[in-house]
């Protein structure tokens, strides 16, 4: 077992983190909601200078790790840029979105001349066409109306890669929510003592931490399988299910720890919460992801200390 990240990938993560914080971190996301053109004027040059467009997770351990940690660093401040879609594509090619059937909207589609949609239900791939500028909605701040276009060639490992990178994006956001909650629990006094001293709050912090660590570990495991070529769709849907459940647990507990302040626009957890909803629902929500997982376990089996074999009827 070798759990350590490549040093180059860690350096890249630190660079991304520093660059995004230097531009205001989550403040930049707030500003871009008010003025979506900031994505072009401020973020595009930054993303290009960091070299995201040259990264291809298919090219080996260091690139895959850099893609994952880059996505996580960007997720920490819910950067208003479709980095996961970009990183899921081969270097320099159009961003890759996952869909289930015909999508109505996709995030940030206005930023690219072309994009691809991979349908997770049958693996088919089509052009994805944006229909105008960003049309903000409370839980879909950078959504763009869209439609499917002509059939296209699917990039290798697009689905598993997208799912893994999405998990890292979400993990970054959950890390921020976790640290904000823990810090607040120490700072906030009620009944003459920090709320961190109350068992009910400790319970929530522990569950929040457990959910985040669970996602972190499973994401690392699945990334390692992606790198060595052994990742299956069952692995991917298992990770996505954990991502959704972890996000639900972290966000729900974070809000309870933070109380009313966590619901206010001025608080970063509010921003994180709404910016995660799209990735948690598209292309599949929790129940549909669980069903997809069960279907793939039946078809492919599942790798454990005591593996589960494919079901004969499903595999046939």
């Amino acid at each position, binding site marked *: 077992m070798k759990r350590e990240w490549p040093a180059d990938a860690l350096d890249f993560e630190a660079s991304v983190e520093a660059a995004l914080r230097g531009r205001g971190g989550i403040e930049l996301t707030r500003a871009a909601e008010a003025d979506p053109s900031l994505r072009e004027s401020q973020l595009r040059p930054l993303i290009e200078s960091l070299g995201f467009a040259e990264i291809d997770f298919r090219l080996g351990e260091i690139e895959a790790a850099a893609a994952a940690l880059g996505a996580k660093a960007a997720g920490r401040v819910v950067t208003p840029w479709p980095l996961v879609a970009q990183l899921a594509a081969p270097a320099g090619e159009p961003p890759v979105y996952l869909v289930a059937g015909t999508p109505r909207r996709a995030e940030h589609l206005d930023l690219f001349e072309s994009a691809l949609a991979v349908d997770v239900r049958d693996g088919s791939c089509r052009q994805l066409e944006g229909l105008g500028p960003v049309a903000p909605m409370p839980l879909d701040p950078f959504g763009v109306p869209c439609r499917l276009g002509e059939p296209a060639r699917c990039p290798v490992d697009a689905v598993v890669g997208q799912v893994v990178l999405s998990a890292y994006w979400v993990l970054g956001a959950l890390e921020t929510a976790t640290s904000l909650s823990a810090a607040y629990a120490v700072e906030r006094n009620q009944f003459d003592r920090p709320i961190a001293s109350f068992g009910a709050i400790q319970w929530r912090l522990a569950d929040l931490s457990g959910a985040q660590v669970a996602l972190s570990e499973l994401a690392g495991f699945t990334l390692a399988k992606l790198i060595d070529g052994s990742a299956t769709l069952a692995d991917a849907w298992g990770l996505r299910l954990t991502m959704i459940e972890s996000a639900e647990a972290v966000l729900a507990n974070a809000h309870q720890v933070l109380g009313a302040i966590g619901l206010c626009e001025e608080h970063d957890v509010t921003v994180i919460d709404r910016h995660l909803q799209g990735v948690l629902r598209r292309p599949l929500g929790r129940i549909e992801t669980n069903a997809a997982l069960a279907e793939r376990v039946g078809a492919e089996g599942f790798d454990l200390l*005591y593996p589960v074999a494919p079901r004969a009827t499903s595999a046939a």
Partner: protein
Amino acid sequence: MTFADDKAVSNLRLRLRRMIEENLPEGFRGAFVEGTAGQEAANDFCRRLAEENLLTMSWPREFGGADASIWEQAALREEMWAHHEPRGAQYMGLNWVGPSIMQFGTPEQRAQHLPAIANASSTWCQGFSEPEAGSDLASLRLRAQRSGEDEWLLSGQKIWTSYASLAQWCFLTARTDNSGSKHHGITIFLVPMDRPGVTVRKIDSMLGPHHLNEVFFDEVVASDAEILGERDKGWDVIRFVLAHERIGIARYARDERILSLLAEYLPDDERPESEALRAAHARLLVKARTARLMNYRSIASTASADAPGGVSGARLATTLLDQEVAALALEVLGEEGLYADDLAPLDAWVEEAWRYARSATIASGTSEVQRLLVARAMTREPAR
């Protein structure tokens, strides 16, 4: 990056699985069942492990071990727990009594106890919990009073003591000083269970035989030479023990094996309830994998640094998984899952797993205490 077993670990797994298949009697359900057959099978199996130098493989070479890597140790725990822990009560001596004596013991204590643990000829019980000190371990009251130049008299009661009726030795916590904080003034004694004044009374429970007992100490004589570590500073030893104990049981491995076996019993039709069972099973496969990975994270961190939050978080995930898997197993098997006779599927493992899982979030520190430890680590409150 890789999370796969390296060659040494995968070879060890194969070797252990072969030994289990060749040496354990068919239908073996652990050492702690009615009658003596389970104990005898466990004793035989321990001797086989000792012959192959596998019983103490986790120990340092200077104490007769094999300096096994942390991942080989993990594989051993996993394979044992997944097969009803065929080391019986010995796992306790191997996992934390021995290491505690290595860490804190005198040369004489090491010479007396380590060889006996290493060849499985001594069985230990843990005298920690008391009627008024469960999760709040430091509130223990069992009193050790000076009765001579180097003698003590031990008086009080321990409870929930597993395997006390089988044990030759007790790893006993006692109060030697009441004057300071409750974490001060605790001393560890290594006491033979056949010493006059020690009485064991079994407590029947849903876990099955031998799991729970009360142990009474009525002016039991102990000597300074039987103190482990420093007098009054037993809390340091307890913290060492708890870190080893919490990581010591690979419940997730048993859960993975149950889930794997359970797959054979899943319905394969298109009814909504069948789809729901398959979905619930698939979800727990992922949760089992994740719980294992959280344990691995914790194991890796103990190799480099003390990480109480990590151990507690992993334990919390694992114990909750244990209960979820047991509940699902009963759902999948339906009525048959309740039965403990020869006709029950999976050698009637499921009903036993369900009963045992009830204790998962209580034994070795309740889930409430584990959450408290995680939260303390998050908010940087110093661990006590």
